């Protein structure tokens, strides 16, 4: 028996080991295939961005024309060149154009440049901008983006995190008080989120900057910037109030409404009623029976919120004159500065891919219903 038992244990252990090895292989295989799929998505996405940012090569024509126009104006303003013969002037003009075209790489075919741009983007060598410079004067796309990232993160992280946590907590609270006056008020106010944040921004500026003079019209800090870290931080904080408020006001009611509806579905499940019947406290019910099953969705939403901070907001930043990524991308699109556009997108693409990748794994950890890599997986 013992021998048989030993044999049986060995078999069982082998089976467990084999199953464990098989699970490990399955997870590894799944992880690799997901990584490859995401990488392929990033490659395709980035190349499409390269093509779109350059309008399939048409931007070259636009840039060539802009170079010609600019060179002509430059020469027109040159008093000495004006007195040269037409041939001499044209010769200078053509030389100026040739130098500028070489500088911008327009002397090479677009296809070649597009694949080079793809490779540089994938290796995160963001290269040099065509026209734009960073605030401190650098042409490196990396520095151009990094400089604008901090103000954008500051504004949007403050506003979005505030929005996210306020929404989830208030929604959770309301889901247990369905039909209360507060619940009805939130539902009634939800359509106000149809207006974008800049719309509220304009009103906030009008009320709190123009009439009451409590807050500044825009910018990130007072002029001239105060010396010292604390006064500087306080000044930034004061400038942050109106733009952050507009983001929160513009989305808070709808966000609460949608989270509250989501929580309501789970609040009315049988097991919640059972827990209630068992006499569990509201906090325990919320934590164990409502939040736990909704956690994957909350985490997904949170992760995507974090990524969305990267994009900034074109109009809001312009309304508040906030030196963020939104304004940067707006200028880059306006001036056909493809490296800056591609640079912004490629970082976003990588962040998105990484988030999706990590979320897949996180789901498996926090949600027992998810079986990574298995047939008919539910993730």
């Amino acid at each position: 028996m013992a021998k048989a038992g030993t044999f049986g244990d060995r078999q069982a252990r082998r089976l467990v080991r084999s199953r464990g090895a098989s699970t490990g292989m399955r997870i590894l295989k799944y992880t690799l295939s997901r990584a490859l799929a995401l990488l392929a998505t990033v490659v395709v996405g980035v190349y499409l961005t390269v093509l779109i940012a350059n309008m399939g090569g048409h931007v070259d024509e636009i840039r060539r024309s802009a170079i010609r126009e600019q060179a002509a104006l430059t020469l027109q303003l040159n008093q000495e060149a004006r007195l040269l013969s037409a041939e001499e002037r044209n010769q200078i003009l053509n030389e100026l154009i040739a130098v500028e075209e070489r500088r911008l790489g327009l002397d090479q075919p677009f296809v070649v440049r597009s694949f080079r741009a793809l490779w540089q983007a994938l290796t995160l060598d963001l290269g040099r901008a065509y026209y734009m410079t960073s605030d401190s004067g650098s042409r490196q796309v990396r520095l151009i983006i990094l400089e604008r990232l901090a103000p954008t993160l500051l504004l949007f992280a403050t506003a979005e995190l505030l929005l996210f946590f306020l929404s989830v907590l208030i929604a959770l609270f309301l889901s247990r008080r369905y039909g209360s006056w507060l619940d009805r008020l939130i539902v009634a106010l939800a359509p106000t989120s149809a207006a974008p944040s800049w719309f509220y921004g304009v009103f906030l500026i009008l009320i709190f900057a123009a009439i009451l003079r409590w807050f500044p019209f825009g910018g990130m800090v007072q002029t001239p910037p105060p010396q010292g870290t604390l006064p500087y931080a306080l000044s930034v904080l004061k400038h942050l109030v109106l733009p952050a408020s507009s983001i929160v006001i513009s989305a808070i009611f709808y966000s609460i409404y949608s989270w509250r509806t989501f929580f309501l579905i789970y609040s009315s499940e049988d097991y919640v009623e059972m827990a209630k019947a068992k006499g569990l406290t509201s906090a325990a019910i919320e934590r164990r029976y409502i939040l736990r099953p909704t956690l994957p969705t909350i985490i997904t939403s949170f992760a995507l919120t974090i990524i969305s901070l990267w994009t900034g907001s074109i109009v809001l930043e312009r309304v508040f004159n906030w030196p963020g990524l939104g304004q940067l991308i707006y200028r880059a699109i306006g001036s056909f500065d493809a490296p800056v556009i591609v640079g912004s997108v490629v970082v976003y693409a990588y962040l998105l891919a990484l988030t999706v990748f990590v979320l897949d794994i996180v789901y498996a950890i926090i949600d027992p219903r998810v079986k990574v890599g298995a047939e008919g997986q539910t993730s």
Partner: protein
Amino acid sequence: MMRRMSQTASWLALALIGTLLLSAGALAQQRRGAWVDEVIMSEEANAATAITRLEVGEIDLYAFAVSDPGLFQQVQANPRLAYSLTYGSFNEMTFNVAGPVFSGSGKLNPFAVARVREAMNWLIDREYIAQEIFGGMGAPRYTVFNTVFPDFARVADVARAIELKYGHDPERAEAVISEEMQELGAVKVNGVWHYNGEPVEIIVLIRVEDERREVGDYLASLLEDLGFVVDRQYKTAGEASAIWISSDPNEGLFHIYTGGWVSTAVDRDLGDNFDFYYNPRGLPYPLWQAYQPTPRFDEISDRLARNDFRSIEERRELIAEALSLSMEDSVRIFYVDRSSFIPRRAELEVTSDLAGGISGTLLWPHTLRFEGRTGGIVNVALPSLLTEPWNPIAGTNWVFDQMPIRGTADSGTIANPYTGLPMPQRIERAEVTVKEGLPVTQNADWVELHFAPEIPVPADAWADWDPVAQRFITVAERFPGGTTALRKSVVYYPEDLYSTVFWHDGSPFSVGDIVMGIILSFDRGKPGSPIFDEVEQPVIEAFLRSFKGVRIVSVDPLVIETYSDTYFLDAELNVSTWFPLYAQGPGAWHNLALGVRAESQEELAFSTAKADQLDVEWMNYVAGPSLGILARHLNEARASNYIPYEPTLGQYVSAEEAQARWSNLAAWYQEKGHFWIGTGPLYLERAYPVEKIVHLKRFERYPDPADKWALFAEPMIAEVDVFGSRRVQLGSPATFEVEVSFAGEPYPDDAIAEVKYLVIDARGEIALTGWAEPLEDGLYRVTLSADDTAKLAVGVNRLEVVTVSTLVSIPTFESFEFVTTR
């Protein structure tokens, strides 16, 4: 008792006020440099927000030319706000002249026919465009000449005649176009023009960024009314330029483009405009190559571009003819001179250039002040700031960056913001000698103009630069057989130049700063130089084609001679000062030397082109990664007491001067954190690149009195009224009085160039022209003799008076109607 106390108190109060006023007056008299203590500049992209901020006093000036009519009304209605007007930009319609049948598409192009293009002048209503579409922020324009520039004033009567001839007349336009369309073989079917069985389609490239969108739609509607099918293509600048500039006109990708141009300064010589806008010589681009001016127009255009005339009178005649021919040619139709306003607080005074606005004139830091006050902080907002790196040689060219840069700069001469004529600033006086027969005239008394049969260039003058040996090539070496020049300029700096002019870091100005400027005029365009920049090579080569030599005749006092074959019609424009104000800002020899060292070692580059080529940063003297590199070079230069271009500059800069300069710059960098220095009335306290803020402060060692340029607080645009009898009998003499004033005061006669009149008779033709005679300051008389009135027809006549001032280039037109009877 009480009354006496009250009287005593009143006297005391009066005495106190008097003392304060006298003190303030004395202070104002003593004040040197800028009136204000500080100028803080920040970004504000939205004009409407900027005006609200002005209204509540958060900012004092929005240094941007706004053209929104609604905002203009808002500013006009607010007594707390004031504004300056600028007129630099203008709009036109560019025609594709290829054809009449496009070889690429086989479609008809009516605008290949000059008469059709000419008829478009009658079709469009310029008054409607200016008043309705531009909301009054523009004036109708008919010719290639900007209506606020001096050349327009010189031929104002001719221009007026053109305006009368090409006034809005849609029936005439339709008749001419129909006639030409039939001539081309087109037929009208159901009100639509057809060619070869297909409707004639007109592609209008409509720019979308400004009022040109409405203008394009208006034009398209007019053409549709005439029976054309119009394809309205709405494009941004970049999208449109790829078509109208780059495409072959014969492909027929467009017929009309809604063009726009801008002048950033008052241009005193528009003679080459005909070549630029109407002739294949203008630009080597496909559209220009399709232009086919008539032989006569081509000849005149060429002569005007080359200044091939003997006198100003001859030039005027050529221009008059060219203007007429350009209207017949009409490859372009100019329709509006745009005006814009720069809003500010009413208590703030500042000079604004007619074309370049406030940011475009070097006078702004001199004239900026709160009315009646000395000192104070001015908050200025601009649409963008610190957009590109600042370096004096090839740094930022953004107009808004140039405003603070101009605040820190000084110059040899300053352009008059209302006439474009240079005025002496750092220099004291000048002499200009030109070859006999050249049509050069003198306008001001600080220049002496001479004519000479020949102008030999001295053998020891510097004619070129050897970048390897780092020494100048003399005239004797470059022109072994000797050479002559068409123009010689001798500039005299004041005797106290070196003791009164200082750089912001405290270094006294020296001749080394001048010599460095001369060296850098050549060095960057010379292969073999460590700072050679291929962008500069063609520019330097062009310069050398006319440049003959420069000679420092005397170091103290500083006198510099310049010889060149380049000349301008105004003697004042022929003065070469060599003051170290570079293309993009001021520079001393020592702070520029750091940049030269950094570029020589391929760590930074002055120009963006070379920075890309070397894959290094574009040099920035005020912020960013450049500062660390420049600081390292400062330490090395200080340690070795470095003098750049030592074989040459070492002859003008002593070791002691070098030592002092490096110490001053090191202390400056330590205190301010940047390398930007000038000799202007304001210095850069700090630039905040991410926050987009520039902080300027008054430079206390600036030598000139603060009120030096007070004359330019406001443009003296003449206000004209005409008085006289409303009824004139044919064959009887008649007189009319013309009152010319400014701000209610008579306009000084010595500031009036001419008061010219035209009489347009009842037939709509110019029947008489002449000049009004001066009676006293601000009063002129137009006399029509009996013979004159006998030439008029019975009916309503219009007396048009054109007043041209020497103080401002905008002529004033005033008309007076009178009836002629038998």
